[in-house]
């Protein structure tokens, strides 16, 4: 068991952007925070990204920021650790983990994040079946590794198609909601790809373009103007493989009302966000309410964004719903304030 100080303790489940930021704010306010992270390293999904929208800054800037934020004497970090049970106590909660460590906490913060949609569930797109169909996560890994982009046959792609709304806004996958950030990710990756493949034709097949954030619309315009990226409004119906391993895609050009087919060298599926397995597990352990879309339910969608359905358990980050990194940081800070409000009352 953790040796307690006389300060109030908070257990943060999840050591990604939201978990670290909220914990730092709370530590600065005088609380003692334990961060429990199931992976071997902290940072969450941002560890996998190369450059961030909208300004294409290095994702490592965020990693460096988070590393500094977590270095507080009041923050104790437990990586490679998972919470296995949560019980209510007179003072707050007691949580057991899968390592020989238990946690007494006056409040719990869930920052368990999201999982990327598994694109193989969209069978008709042939992910894991056709060689040259990859996801935006795969492409980001290739960007991070550096070097030239090739098809699996070793060819330099002359034509690339980005497919929006993979796994989101789709009754067939059960995810009716919009994952918000995939459209701008597609535009960002298309621009990055145009730098690496200056002679390639790059297409984005979208249903609607969700350019909601600061500088997103400007990024879209510059993608068209400066990088020659072509946007075609129409949802991909199916992808098939040709004899030379190029991919035949069938969409409708809805704005002209005619079906369209083209052969591309590479298909990139912009996969959406789903409520993570960690979110599901933690929500069950804490006996919280879930939304219909499987993310955790807040107590009030306008006024109680960081409060869960149970008193004393708070939510931060993409366990509530799809969020970008700036929004996650905002949300984490507001979660810290909610927790402080709650703990000051008692």
């Amino acid at each position, binding site marked *: 068991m953790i040796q307690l100080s006389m300060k109030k303790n908070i257990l943060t489940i999840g050591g990604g952007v939201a978990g670290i930021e909220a914990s730092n704010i709370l530590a600065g306010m005088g609380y003692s925070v334990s961060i429990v992270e199931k992976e071997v390293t902290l940072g969450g999904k941002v560890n996998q990204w190369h450059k961030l929208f909208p300004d294409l800054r290095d994702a490592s800037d965020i990693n460096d920021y988070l590393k500094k934020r977590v270095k507080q004497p009041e923050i104790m970090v437990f990586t490679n650790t998972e919470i296995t049970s949560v019980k209510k106590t007179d003072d707050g909660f007691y949580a057991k983990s899968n390592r020989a460590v238990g946690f007494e906490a006056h409040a719990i913060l869930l920052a368990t994040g999201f999982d990327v949609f598994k694109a*193989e569930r969209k*069978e008709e797109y042939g*992910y*894991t079946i056709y060689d040259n169909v990859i996801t935006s996560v795969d492409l980001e890994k290739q960007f991070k590794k550096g070097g030239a982009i090739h098809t699996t046959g070793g060819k330099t792609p002359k034509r690339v198609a980005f497919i929006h709304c993979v796994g989101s806004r789709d009754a067939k996958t059960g995810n009716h909601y919009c994952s918000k950030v995939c459209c701008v990710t597609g535009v960002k990756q298309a621009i990055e790809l145009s730098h690496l493949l200056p002679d390639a034709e790059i297409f984005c097949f979208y249903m609607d373009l969700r350019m909601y954030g600061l500088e997103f619309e400007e990024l879209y315009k510059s993608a068209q103007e400066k990088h020659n990226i072509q946007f075609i409004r129409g949802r991909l119906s199916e992808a*098939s493989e040709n*004899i030379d391993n190029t991919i035949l895609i069938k969409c409708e050009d809805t704005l002209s009302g005619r079906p369209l087919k083209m052969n591309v060298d590479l298909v990139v599926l912009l996969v959406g966000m789903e409520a993570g397995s960690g979110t599901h597990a933690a929500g069950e352990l804490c006996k919280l309410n879930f939304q219909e879309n499987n993310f955790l339910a807040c107590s009030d969608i306008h006024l109680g964004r960081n409060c869960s359905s149970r008193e004393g358990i708070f939510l931060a980050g993409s366990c509530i719903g799809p969020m970008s990194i700036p929004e996650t940081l905002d949300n984490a800070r507001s979660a810290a304030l909610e927790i402080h409000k709650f703990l000051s009352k008692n």
Partner: protein
Amino acid sequence: MKVQGKRKIWHDYQKEIADDHYYYVRSCIRQNFFPASEYYFLKILKDVLGKDVFDDPKHTTCTGIGYHADIIPFETIQTVVARHFALMTEAGYKNFAVSCVTSFGIYSEITETWKEFPEELEKTRIALKKSTGREFKVPANITHTSDLIYKFKGDIAEKQVHELINKKTGKPLQIIEHVGCHYAKIFPSKGVGGAEFPNVLTGMIEEWGGEVVDYPERRHCCGFGFRQYLVQGNRGYSLANSKKKFESMKPYHPDAIICNCPGCTMFLDKWQYVLSETEGKTYGAYGSGIPVLTYEELAGLVLGYNPWDLGLQMHQVDSEPLLDKMGIEYDPEKKYLGKKDQYIGQPCNIVASL
């Protein structure tokens, strides 16, 4: 292409197929255009696999063609289907084996309708009682006969005489499989392997030594559809669909096409002739067509039955190139001779005359 991805999907879409004791319903088109297919299906199931299959002369067409062409109303077809279920119940069977893919779609559609709308089931019971005096039970299991061959493909492989291998090169035959639309596209869970990557024919072909070709228009409909080809002037619309498939499969130089729907087999077989006459194009190697077989004929070939007994001479596209590749012996003189060695007539020549 990563086949493991496909195998995972096939693993996810498993379907319950009954083991034995089937009530068999025949297909209008398969009987007429591929006359020995159903005969050999019954022979294989009864004699080779030792199963109990009841071939009832009292059943009629399921009227699927009429229903899809808006000639037969929904109430009528429900009652016709109910009558078949009544015949099955009276014969003492619970498992329904359907020969035609359209029929399979009809039976699936109607039984699903009855699950969601029980009032329709009640109405049908009353209608059947009033018109024929019969009562029926809904079958415990409805399968398509290709599912049965798929289920017993291993047993057939044990008794296999010929493999799906090109005897001259030693390589597996490149075979294209085409699954009927109504098999899995309406209810993906009712098709082995689901709707996007169906496994029913792929499983058979691979078990018997062949290799399946995946080409871009694999999922595309052959164009049969009933409504559009019933009127002669519209047939160009149907034909354009088959042509799209042929153009797409040509670079792969397939050795044969296998279908599980009788309509598809007929279309892909006969349209090659029309395309050779009107467009001057053929899609097989050396200016000939691609042989199109039903899965029963394929099963019969691998088990060593005589090709002419299987009815291969009735196909528009000659199957001899395939038989030669497989090393199957046949007597060319006897091709168009019947059981008593009488001349039975022959189709027009497939090779382009343009």
